[in-house]
């Protein structure tokens, strides 16, 4: 199994957020999790990425034959987990190019691969950026600093394509995007999809799933997955809302 979440219960500040959650993802699959606000979707994304504010009460997560809880945030990232943030944070003065260059090399180091030199990296970055319709000038700027909402999301996808993760988690990537930006972002995701990597797409609305076709759709309510199935579930939610699952 590529990613296996078993009986996961998580709390934050005395509030139980995830309750006996189960989810299995195989290589090459695209999974979507839909759910109303406050159902625990973003908590799941952050627990997978290793954010430290949460208390794991029960359960286990295996990722590529590792017990995920044995790895810290950066080790998970280096193992190939990528989280596209809902609200990417600004880091003034930290230039995008060296930032991503260090990121890719820390991953390569862990994988005992040779580090990529400045010149080859600059080439790689340029070509990936132009694939995503990102202006080269943007690569001279500081991480997320002064970016519009759409630019931030597009830049998340650029990082994803550079780091080429095994498991990409997209946390509400569609929020705040107009239809043109949504198209660019989802095109980027579709280009990255191979039979060897997997996607976990967290969203509120069905719209995103018109552009990225999931293999499985899960409905998350109140900290658990209450229903799983194919794309037809998304259509059901679009029509009737989450009401009937609660």
């Amino acid at each position, binding site marked *: 199994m590529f990613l296996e979440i078993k009986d996961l219960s998580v709390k934050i500040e005395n509030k139980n957020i995830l309750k006996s959650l189960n989810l299995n993802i195989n290589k090459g699959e695209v999974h979507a999790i839909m759910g109303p606000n406050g159902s625990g979707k973003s908590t799941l994304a952050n627990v997978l*990425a*290793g*954010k*430290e*504010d949460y208390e794991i009460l029960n359960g286990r997560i295996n990722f590529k034959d590792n017990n995920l809880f044995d790895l*810290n*945030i*950066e080790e998970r*990232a*280096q193992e190939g987990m*990528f*989280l596209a*943030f809902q609200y*990417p*944070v600004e*880091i*003034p*003065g*930290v*230039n995008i190019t060296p*930032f*991503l260059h*260090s*990121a*890719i090399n*820390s*991953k390569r180091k*862990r994988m005992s691969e040779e580090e990529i030199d400045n010149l080859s990296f600059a080439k790689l970055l340029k070509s990936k950026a132009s694939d995503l319709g990102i202006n080269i000038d943007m690569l001279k700027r*500081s*991480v997320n600093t002064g970016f519009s909402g759409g630019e931030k999301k597009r830049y998340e996808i650029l*990082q994803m394509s550079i*780091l080429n993760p095994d498991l990409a988690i997209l946390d509400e990537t569609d929020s705040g995007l107009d239809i043109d930006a949504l198209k660019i972002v989802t095109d980027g995701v579709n280009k990255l999809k191979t039979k060897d990597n997997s996607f976990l797409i967290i969203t509120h609305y069905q719209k995103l799933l018109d552009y990225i076709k999931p293999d499985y759709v899960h409905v998350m309510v109140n900290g658990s997955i209450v229903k799983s199935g194919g794309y037809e579930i998304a259509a059901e939610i679009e029509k009737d809302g989450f009401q009937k699952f609660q």
Partner: protein
Amino acid sequence: MNSETLNTLNSYSKNKYKYGFVTEIDDEKPKKGLNEDTIKFISLKKNEPEWMLDWRLKAYSKWKKMKEPKWANLSFPEIDYQDIYYYSAPKGFEKKPKDLSEVDPKLIETYNKLGIPLEEQKVLAGVAVDVVFDSVSVATTYKGELEKLGIIFCSIGEAIQKHPDLIKKYLGSVIPPGDHSFSALNSAVFTDGSFVYIPESVKCPMELSTYFRINAENTGQFERTLIIADKGSYVSYLEGCTAPKRDDNQLHAANVELIALEDAEIKYSTVQNWYPGDEDGKGGIYNFVTKRGLCAGKNSKISWTQVETGSAITWKYPSCILKGDNSIGEFYSVAITNNFQQADTGTKMTHIGKNTKSKIISKGISLGKSQNTYRGEVSFLRKADKARNYTQCDSLLVGNQCGAHTVPYIDSKNNSAVIEHEASTSKINEDQLYYCRQRGLSHEEAVSLIVNGFCKQVLQELPMEFAVEAQKLVSISLEGSVG
């Protein structure tokens, strides 16, 4: 701040202060305390002419009537001036050694450990170094090569002997001995430091650098540096400093004077890494420094860049007097304080001439229980038509027990002056760290990246050879912070 951030910041403390070792060497000192005999001793040791001793004694009589300036945001016990040695030299240094074969191998070893080899062939390519150990200059490299261009680069002691006319004309011309108590003190007891003269139209082909080391216990270091750039000349100068770890506080009171004549430019960079004291605030250097540059001629330029990471107390305001029309003054500063360090630093830009311009970029980073103050004064005198100043001061707080303060003064007597001022204070935040780590960077890398990003505008002003070192130093200075 969560526990992991704390752990990372604490783990920096294993790095600690790398330069804290002591060199066991016989030294020669006068009795402790400050009086006319001490001054006569120093002057005699340095084999100085009569006029120099008189100059010192005059400064001393001024000092006796003065009180320390108290306006800074610093707290420390009263300095007992009678409990300090004012001179310390390794034995056998009555005369500066002619070459390295005359230098005690222990000293050469000391500098190797500090990463400053004294053999010219091993020295950083393109950097000439004057090395000051306690009160004496140990060696000056590349002197011969510079002499061919007419450049004088030697210790101030040597300049007093060999270039009395320049010394008489310029010493104390920018910082008068009676300016304040630390300048009077320095003028009375200064021991060594560097002297630079760049002749007309000469662009100095290499970085000039002085490396100061305090070694002896209970000893004050009173460095005096004087740099004169004659018409149309250019020089870039860098100073570095370290001291051993000791439980007692030590006093360092330097005076640095720069003079740029018409069309001349001086770029002065400092990487200050004196011993900052331990995690509990014990020991460390009291760094009371007066640095002032005079843009004497038209179109002259003086640029100060400082990276201040050391010292228990830093009191330092590298300033520019913009006298010549169209002259330019710049001040770029990074000040990092950690544990119980206190820094009160900034600049003074005095616009006298027409069309004079000044620019101030200050970045303060406070960690632990430290206090970091930016203090600046920009003044425009009556004749400073169309003068301009741009000031930007940013503070970054790491943890919640430290303080950042900004105290800007602006005084304009000319209506055509243009003044811009920007200031910001921010905290390093967990979201930024989480974001960097999610991309695969370690916690340590993330902190250092964020802080270096914050300082970038200043670090890029340093000469190439030192920019990388400075970045590393910034990372090391983040050690041992308690959030």
